[in-house]
């Protein structure tokens, strides 16, 4: 069932994408996010050595690869948490490599980080409101809060509860909701299925599908390739810090190399 659902979503968005790109051609719009030859170092250690990828407006792009492949490092570098040693990160046509994390999120690029990084001492609602720090319009913040509560009714129920008292699945909802509160142009999700029960993961991915249909652009790092390819339009595979394979999700799912290495076919 979900296979049909995702391919349908995929095609729809690619068409929508193409039309958006055409209509937006006036302001020289290429992909929303374009990374070329990104290299990140931790002191003498190399985090990623050569990552290139594109995220077209309105699409869901999966960043795949095994543990240690460089998915988290790549997302953290895009978000500005770690500096790019070389290469370029262009977001909405603007070079953002070298900018601070707090400046990048204000441009509309939000990351739900590995391990969620919630403010566990504060209430659920405070966590969400902290996510809206880049915004100043109170009415808009209220609308966004209602929207997040509509997407995750659990969070509305628990809004006065401390974030630290929530279960893993609820924390994942809160992390995604918090990232959505900045009303991002691009939402980056780092391993949203990690450590969660299969039912929770499924409903989480249904939510991503919904956000996608509503026009949100998503860059999704995921170890579970089968799951990620179901919701994505495009995918890039990382291997020991390099992007080795890119293409449409459908093509990658059929790729014998991917099948052999990851899908166990």
């Amino acid at each position: 069932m979900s296979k049909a659902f995702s391919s349908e979503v995929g095609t729809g968005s690619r068409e929508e994408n193409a039309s958006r790109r055409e209509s937006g051609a006036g302001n020289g719009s290429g992909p929303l996010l374009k990374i070329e030859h990104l290299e990140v170092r931790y002191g003498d250690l190399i985090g990623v050595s050569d990552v290139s990828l594109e995220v077209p407006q309105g699409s869901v792009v999966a960043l795949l690869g095994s543990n240690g492949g460089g998915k988290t490092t790549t997302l953290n570098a895009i978000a500005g948490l770690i500096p790019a040693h070389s290469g370029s990160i262009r977001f909405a046509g603007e070079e953002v490599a070298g900018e601070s994390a707090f400046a990048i999120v204000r441009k509309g690029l939000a990351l739900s980080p590995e391990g969620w990084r919630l403010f566990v001492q504060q209430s659920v609602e405070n966590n969400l409101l902290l996510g809206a720090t880049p915004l100043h319009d109170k009415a808009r913040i209220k609308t966004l809060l209602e929207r997040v509560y509509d997407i995750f009714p659990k969070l509305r129920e628990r809004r006065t509860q401390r974030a630290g008292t929530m279960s893993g699945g609820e924390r994942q909802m809160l992390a995604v909701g918090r990232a959505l509160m900045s009303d991002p142009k691009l939402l980056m999700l780092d391993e949203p299925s990690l450590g969660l029960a299969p039912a929770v993961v499924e409903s989480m991915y249904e939510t991503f599908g919904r956000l996608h249909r509503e026009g949100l652009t998503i860059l999704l790092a995921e170890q579970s390739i089968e799951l990620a390819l179901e919701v994505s339009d495009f995918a890039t595979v990382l291997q020991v810090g390099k992007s080795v394979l890119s293409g449409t999700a459908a093509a990658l799912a059929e790729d014998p190399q991917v099948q052999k290495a990851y899908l166990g076919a």
Partner: protein
Amino acid sequence: MSFVLVQVIVGGLLLGAVYALFSSGLTLVWGMMNVVNFAHGDFVMVGMYVAYVVYTLLGGGPLVGAPLATLLLATLGIVVYFGLIRDIMKGPMLAQILGTFGLALLLRYSVFWWFGANFLSLPENLVGGTFDIGGIRIQASRLLAGVVALLVTLGLHLLLTRTTLGSRMLAVAEDSTAAQLMGIRPDTMQAIAWAIAAGATGLAGALIATFFYVVPTVGETLGIVAFVTVSLGGFGSVPGALVAGLLIGVIESLSGYLIGAVYKDMVVYALFLGFLWFRPQGLMGKS
């Protein structure tokens, strides 16, 4: 209970509220960025001298002196954050100890240089008279200091727990990397924390100067009070500092009255040591 005993306890509570006020600054800075400010007591001392200058040389009262000391010290806090703390935070703990201790000496001896080592005291009638409430006599200066300090400390707690600014400051305290992902600039929040912490010492200094002795080394005594208050209340907890400050004020004045003024500090610290033996995380700290 005799009237005198009640009077001693009320006096202790009023002084304790001032202790709580300046200690809450120390606990805030610790809670935000794990920095121990050894110059904290000397910040209070500078606040006292600012008030002294206003009260005596400029002829202003506490209505002028207290806001001015608050503002000047808050500015000093921001300058100290950007000029010193931001850099030493990146270093080892020893850098913080030596850096802030050096700052304490700089402040202390600058004041020595300007004002000399003499004990100064302010005109008795600065905050006029004594109240008689049902037989309990309270100096107006102490009443003013205690009540203002109590209200401001409670206000600080509300600021941290009920406002957007407070929520952002606590977010930086908890996880400054995640706070950056929210679009919060940790530097700004930490500078604000220093402004608040130092501003609180300025206000406390101006309030306490109306009835306390003023001398360049007073920061040493008050600094120790702040450290005891913060460890008793739990590092990082403003409500903890409030309860601990009041408690120390009362114990101090009770033992001063019952045992003798010379021994009051000894009693406070002996009880404090005993308490830490059983509850090292303090009253409201997390273990």
